[in-house]
């Protein structure tokens, strides 16, 4: 992770615009939500949202939260969609209880057609009864699971 200086470090130019533009367009996350934070780049296109003030320190392991990976397109992280889920206003798939259980254990699910009405293919926020579960990829009527393996859980109380 780059860590020099006390201000955000992001490259190549335009990445910040690309990430914030995507989050606003796809999820309705307004840019003003990120005013208090800085963006930081790590290897493999990973983009972190972290504090604005980062002292020049050796041995920094991580700054802030991994919010997206940028490889031509932007892939939002489950961390981000869980953290700001309440502020997401579009491209939300409301899961049934069975679908939420499947999602939490790492499985894909086929949402009811009403649940994806008006939602174009792409990344979505999976929600259950108002709780933001994480990121999914809507493709050909299926929600593909984007949950990192370490976060998977066999839920017993939902």
């Amino acid at each position, binding site marked *: 992770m780059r860590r020099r200086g006390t201000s955000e470090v992001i490259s190549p130019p335009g990445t910040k615009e690309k990430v914030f533009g995507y989050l606003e367009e796809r999820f309705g996350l307004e840019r003003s939500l990120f005013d*208090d*934070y800085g963006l930081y780049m790590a290897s493999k296109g990973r983009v972190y*949202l*972290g*504090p*604005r*003030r*980062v*002292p020049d*320190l*050796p*041995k*920094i*392991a*991580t*700054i*802030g*939260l*991994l919010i997206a990976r940028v490889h031509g397109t932007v892939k939002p992280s489950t*961390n981000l969609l*869980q*953290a*700001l889920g309440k502020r997401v206003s579009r491209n939300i798939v409301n899961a049934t209880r069975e679908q*939420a259980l499947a999602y*939490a254990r790492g499985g894909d699910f086929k949402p009811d057609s009403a649940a994806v009405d008006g939602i174009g293919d792409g990344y979505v926020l999976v929600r*259950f009864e108002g*709780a*933001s*579960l994480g990121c999914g990829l809507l493709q050909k009527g299926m929600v593909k699971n984007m949950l990192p393996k*370490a*976060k998977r*859980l*066999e*839920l*017993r*109380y*939902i």
Partner: protein
Amino acid sequence: MRIPDRFRERYCSLVDDEEAFLSCLGELLPKSFRVNTIKSSADEVMRRFEGYGMGLKRVPWYGDAFICDNPEAGFSLEHFTGAIYIQELVSMLPPLLVREELGKSRFVLDGCAAPGSKSTQIAAMMGNKGTLIANDVSYSRIRALKFNLEKAGVLNTVITNRDLNAFQNLKFETILLDAPCSSEGTIRKNYDVFDAWSEGGIRQFSNVQKQLILKAFDMLMPEGTLVYSTCTFAPEENEEVLQHLIDNRPEARLEKASFDGLRTSETVGSWNGTEFSGEIRNAARIWPHHNDTGGFFLAKVRK
């Protein structure tokens, strides 16, 4: 569980009720968790858990903390989404002691942060704003720290992996030093604590803590606040460390460590022939049998 004779000799004279103390050490801890206010609220979580048929008891001294009568809170939707953080009650005390300061601080250090229980709590108390440096010397524990901060939705943190003694001389408004210790107070969840227990070990921890507390104090801004805490009973790791601070940094002032609704006990006045300064009485001991918790020690130091 076999309690070492020397352990009994050391502590039974310090507690009010020897029998209650020793029998409490063999009892399981109640299951507790804290609501992560970055993602949810105590009322929302309570409503959900009532729907699961789980009995929750709000902790009298901390409105965001609950004792749960069901050991399976870790399999709940709220644990999955990071709306709750499963945490032992006494471990919640250090950030709570400086809640007001954290609400105003914009530059905070958690010196021994892994696995992140207190860092996630500090970040929430800072409103997820400003900068929190969460440092830990152990590389292997950084992974758990990172995972827990991510799960809690923490944005304001920089994780560093350094020996605190070698840390740059930055100046912080608030510092938490939850020092590495002999962990005697965690015996109710870690039965193997007594396997490795020795007075030599306590002495080693004490030496490390004495270095760390001076370093942490030196990294405070003027009027800044340091919380020093351990989860052990040993006076060598608690009162003696504070005495070392006072002897070497006379400007250090201890403020009263207390919580409405939590029973705290007086610190030890002397140990192994050493009389401790009256200032140290402002620190607090928490004995397991008084509040049905783990054992703990904490002090609030102002520069």
